[in-house]
């Protein structure tokens, strides 16, 4: 069933300031290339295209001129209690001690898509066809992420390969790989965001900025009441934006 919350000494988390996101898509573009997602010619079919990071457009549902919009970048929420992990029949996806990152291992995945069905955030993508790059473009593939064949499920990994690099760098410099400085490991979307709307760090480490950010009264998470206990936090000073993070009954 729904499993229990796991505690990790390191809990990597992202804090996204919606009030700063202009919806430009730089995070998505960064993610695509960092993680070797193929360029998709028919990317306008959003139900078929792969974008580990996706920017949603939020509206307050009112008419002009009271209408308001906001953009919500959505990486994998790295749930503390992931709906997708317990359902996997072959342990291709796990929530283990790795900083609380929900792993997804492609050579183990059989492509049953049960996790795709279980995830309410739509962060899981299936390889419908073998990936194809325009001639020569495979030379620009990132060496840090493997290319997935068709038929397996993939998702945002919080660029965990950058963590392994950061740990290696710490080891080489005689530092503690399990106590990285703030900023030693950040995801590509966080690094490249032109607005600085995204922050990343160890939620449990008081030396990391995000540790404080998640305590903001404006911080909230998506679908909290389902008990997914996500590690991605959003911040907005706008109440209607916060309200769109979850479902509420009229009486609430």
């Amino acid at each position, binding site marked *: 069933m729904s499993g229990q919350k796991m505690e990790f000494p390191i809990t990597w988390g992202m804090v996204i300031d919606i009030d700063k996101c202009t919806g430009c898509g730089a995070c998505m573009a960064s993610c695509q290339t960092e993680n070797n997602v193929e360029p998709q010619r028919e990317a306008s079919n959003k139900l078929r295209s792969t974008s580990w990071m996706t920017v949603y457009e939020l509206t307050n549902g009112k008419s002009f001129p009271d209408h308001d919009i906001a953009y919500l970048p959505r990486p994998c929420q790295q749930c503390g209690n992931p709906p997708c992990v317990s*359902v996997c029949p072959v342990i291709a996806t796990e929530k283990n001690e790795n900083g609380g990152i929900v792993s997804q291992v492609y050579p183990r*995945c059989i492509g049953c898509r049960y996790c795709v069905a*279980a995830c*309410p955030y739509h962060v899981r993508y299936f390889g419908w*066809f073998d990936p194809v790059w325009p001639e020569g473009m495979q030379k620009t593939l990132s060496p840090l992420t493997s290319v997935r064949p068709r*038929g397996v499920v993939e998702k945002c990994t919080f660029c965990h390969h950058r963590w392994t690099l950061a740990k290696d760098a710490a080891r080489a410099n005689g530092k503690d790989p399990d106590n990285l400085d703030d900023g030693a490991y950040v995801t590509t979307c966080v690094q490249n965001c032109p607005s600085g709307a995204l922050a990343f760090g160890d939620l449990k480490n008081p030396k990391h900025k995000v540790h404080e950010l998640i305590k903001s009264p404006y911080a909230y998470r998506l679908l909290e*009441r389902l008990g997914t206990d996500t590690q991605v936090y959003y911040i907005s000073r706008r109440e209607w934006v916060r309200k769109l993070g979850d*479902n509420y009954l009229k009486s609430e």
Partner: protein
Amino acid sequence: MSIIESEKNWYPEGVERCSLGKFLKWLAFLGIVAGYGFVAMIVCFVYGLGVTGLDNYFGFGLWITFDLAVIALGAGAFFTGLLRYIIRIDELKNIINLTVIKGFICYSGAMLILSLDVGQPIRSWFGYWHPNVHSMLTEVIFCITCYLLVLIIEYVPLILEQKQINKIPYLHNLAHQMHVVMPLFAGIGAFLSTFHQGSLGGMYGVMFARPYAFRDGFFIWPWTFFLFVLSAIATGPCMTVLICGFMEKVTGRKLTTYRIKSLMCKIGGTMLLIYTVFKYLDTWAWINNVLPRAGMTFDQMFYGLVYGRWLFVCELVLCLLVPVVFLLTPLRKKPVFMYSGAILACAGVVINRYVFTVQALAIPVLPFTKWEIYTPNWAEWATSLMVIAYGFIIMSLSYRYLPIFPQEVGLNKK
């Protein structure tokens, strides 16, 4: 001896069959349908599942619905086996063979579709080698494959009883021995089958982030676990009766007595009544507990035509209450009520499996997402049709050459 004459030697003792030419034409027709599906299957294997109508919103679609429906309707086999061999309702021996073949067709067909539905079929064995004991799907994989083996074991003696094959003493003996141990397999089968019917339901019930499907439950099993078992054993016997009736219609011969069919329907109806009670309780708890906890309302669960409220009404009223009345009251004595009751019951379970598979995924759980529509495409339809055609082929061959219906000779004496 011409082929046409010698072919007749293979018929069961004392029965009549249509001409070989007619039979071959029938097979050819089925073969074309199956062949079309086979091409679709190869296309899926070679190019990947992108050729289907599935997408990242609807990872599960027609195939899973088809599998679940077929497996539910195929449940007649284990349940009738249970009643015949364990509970010893002896009368059922007259229809048990049919249920075994139906079960075999349904399960092997479902397996075929499943192997298509996984993105990496070559890795399917990981389900055994690297099982995740927490996953309901692991339970399904284990139980379905094991149960398919049981069904094969149950089907083999039927083949061995074929007039010509049975002449070989060794095989004759083997068939006999297998019949002796059949209660054991019936028992194993009943156990396995109950479990995977349940875990198929459990697969949906555990999706706690999908309010449409999520259910609380008993120990590790959500209520859907038990509901799926109940709905399967309720509709399985009805499906057997429908198949039997259909075969009688097609062949123009009486295969079992109305009494047997009526008994099966009564059993199915009784189970359907139990199911109805639990399903109503479950629905009530879902509307008043599961949904509000998720911050959602009953009204939010329906949209447009394909996910409309009419499905809900159909499933819970037209296909539950009505068939219960038709199957458990004296109305059953009239074929029209009995058959339509059975049809409705089966339709109800198909709707149930559809809404759990597709509607559950179509509902926007994130408040800023919207309803999405899923339409299966030719590749999914063709392969599903292939399995149906395959079932018809197996059933046609079995009927023509195997002594399935013990009463057939007696009932058709002129």
